[in-house]
């Protein structure tokens, strides 16, 4: 039986040089990038020269001096998140940026403990470890990487980690990172407008294919 999808979160990370203080709900609202309902429900944790951290009902933004992060765990807002970030970086088109990542994490729960172990045993065979370690070995986290084959320079990174939560007894987090190197022609807006949807679709396909292959 295939695992149940419990949660998923999409995020966009941009590496560059930022002034965290300008990132706040009021700035987004003044530029008409969020609605009045969004700003009325906004939760501002901190606006500071070193870090800005706030959220609305459907997205959260964290900004450090060298990193911008926007995320949502509402699948119906994945395209809205793209639009928001495209808009932000269209306005801030002079901001120095050098890399970006399009990420999505899936939290999955296995009803069958045996299948959960089978997934780990398939992805990380235990025989070699059991010869040296005194007790049963379990997979905590696994990460693989491969170069991109599309128009952008960068790589794809897949990570699988074991998780446990109040509603997940035997679970994994399947994470995908689609990393892109930016330059004057390859901008944040260009990458998101051309690749965001494909990145999400590819992440889902990869997740389904890898898990199906590992537990069959």
């Amino acid at each position: 039986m295939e695992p149940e999808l419990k949660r998923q979160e999409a995020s966009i990370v941009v590496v560059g040089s930022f002034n965290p203080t300008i990132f706040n709900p009021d700035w987004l609202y003044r530029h008409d990038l969020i609605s009045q309902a969004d700003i009325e429900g906004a939760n501002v944790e901190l606006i500071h020269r070193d870090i800005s951290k706030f959220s609305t009902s459907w997205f959260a933004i964290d900004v450090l001096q060298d990193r911008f992060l926007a995320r949502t765990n509402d699948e119906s807002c994945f395209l809205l998140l793209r639009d928001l970030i495209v808009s932000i970086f269209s306005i801030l088109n002079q901001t120095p940026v050098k890399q970006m990542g399009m990420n999505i994490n899936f939290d999955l729960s296995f009803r069958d403990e045996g299948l959960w172990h089978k997934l780990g045993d398939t992805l990380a065979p235990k025989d070699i470890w059991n010869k040296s370690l005194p007790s049963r070995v379990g997979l905590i986290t696994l990460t693989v990487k491969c170069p991109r084959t599309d128009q952008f320079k960068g790589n794809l990174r897949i990570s699988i980690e074991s998780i446990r939560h109040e509603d997940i007894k035997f679970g994994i987090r399947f994470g995908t990172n689609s990393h892109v190197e930016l330059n004057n022609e390859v901008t944040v807006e260009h990458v998101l407008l051309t690749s965001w949807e494909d990145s999400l679709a590819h992440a889902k396909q990869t997740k389904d294919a890898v898990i199906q292959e590992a537990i069959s």
Partner: protein
Amino acid sequence: METAQAYSEYYTSETSHADTLVDGFSDRISASNSTSIDLCSADEKKDDATIIDKKNSFKTPEITVAPPIKPLKGNFKLLQLWEGYVVDINEIKHEFSVVAKDKTDTSMPDEEFTMSIEEVPPTDLDLLSIGAVFYWSIGYADYPGRPRSRESRVRFRRLPKWKQADLNNAKKRGNELADFFASYQ
């Protein structure tokens, strides 16, 4: 003004809290150029990962799952999503016509249908115009303290407004190109 004052108060009074947050982030963000988010235990060292701890206290258990984004807790299970644009608005019938693409099943052809203006959130009404792009999603919403509900959501795309300088530059460029091509006639 109240919002600006609130931010000012945050700026001046939360410095020590900010220092704590910054230190917490700095400890967990490597110097590498990774653009992934690793939500593993903060105890695990990663040579090439960006670790961001979502909890304010930065005291993570051995196996962590990120808490829900505040302030909305709960889950929305998407059943159907369309992306469309407005082709007609009928004020008398209080409805608008759209052409929409099924984003859940991309093999489906584009569809044309009519929606009630009541479906549009009040804060998005000013975005309702011919050509405006919107997203319509239907799904099950599970929020703490409430039974499961089936929700229909319409949200319009928001893009930055054109600045007058951008319009002027575009017009100037257009004139230059027109003159250029006219000179070859």
